[in-house]
């Protein structure tokens, strides 16, 4: 099955290559950040990237992936906390009534 990480990897390859050509540089590493709901598996993404970057300008690029927590605001005590999927409740008052805050998008931070 062709996973969505492949599409992420393809977009990454294009963006890194574009920037490297513009700067006339050889890319060696790229830092990515993503939220909880982007459903990106590090291992799969690195594998997909390695596969499509082979024999291109980006073949030596190492990916570093930073995961940002998903935050929510408690409707009872207004506390902002990081959501744990296995225990979805407010860290302060343990209320289960909370609103999810927007998840961090998938971003190519720097190369």
């Amino acid at each position, binding site marked *: *099955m*062709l*996973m*969505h990480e*492949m*599409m*992420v990897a393809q*977009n*990454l390859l294009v*963006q890194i290559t574009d*920037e490297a050509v513009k*700067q006339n*540089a050889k890319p*060696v590493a790229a830092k*990515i950040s993503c939220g909880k*709901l*982007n*459903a*990106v598996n590090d291992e799969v993404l690195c594998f997909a990237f390695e596969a499509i970057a082979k024999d291109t300008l980006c073949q030596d690029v190492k990916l570093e992936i930073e995961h940002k927590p998903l935050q929510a605001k408690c409707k009872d005590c207004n506390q902002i906390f990081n*959501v744990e*999927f*296995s225990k*979805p409740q407010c860290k302060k008052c343990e209320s289960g009534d909370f609103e*999810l805050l927007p998840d961090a*998008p*998938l*971003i*190519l*931070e*720097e*190369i």
Partner: protein
Amino acid sequence: MKKIKIEKKILSENQKCSIENKSLLAERNKLCLNMISSPGSGKTTILVRTITELKDRIKIGVIEGDIQTDIDAERIRATEAPVVQINTEGACHLSAVQISRALNKLPIDDLDLILIENVGNLVCPSAFELGEAGKIVVLSVAEGDDKPAT
């Protein structure tokens, strides 16, 4: 080694295309919904039933996503609703550019509602905006009632 700041959304191409789809639909005043669920939960059954029940009141068009086959599209076709099949050839989700092409093939001006049946997969399709006004999630409780609701 030099560090270059980029700070660009990786899926910006999909995002851009989904916004184009959204404005096209808004201009023509059409409602578009994206149905997602795990395989076999009943997306197609709900679609067929909805089309049949609402046939005399609203005109519905369907964009049918599937990895390989057009079995589901055949079921929709039997209701005489216009349907466009997208085969993802192995990919786990529909992307906005596929929807853009499919919208061109549908007689949108004759329709009130466009329903997208995404690939049967509850994980990946949720990360790809298609330009829809909202999502319909079909949950199959037979697969377990202990899933955390997020």
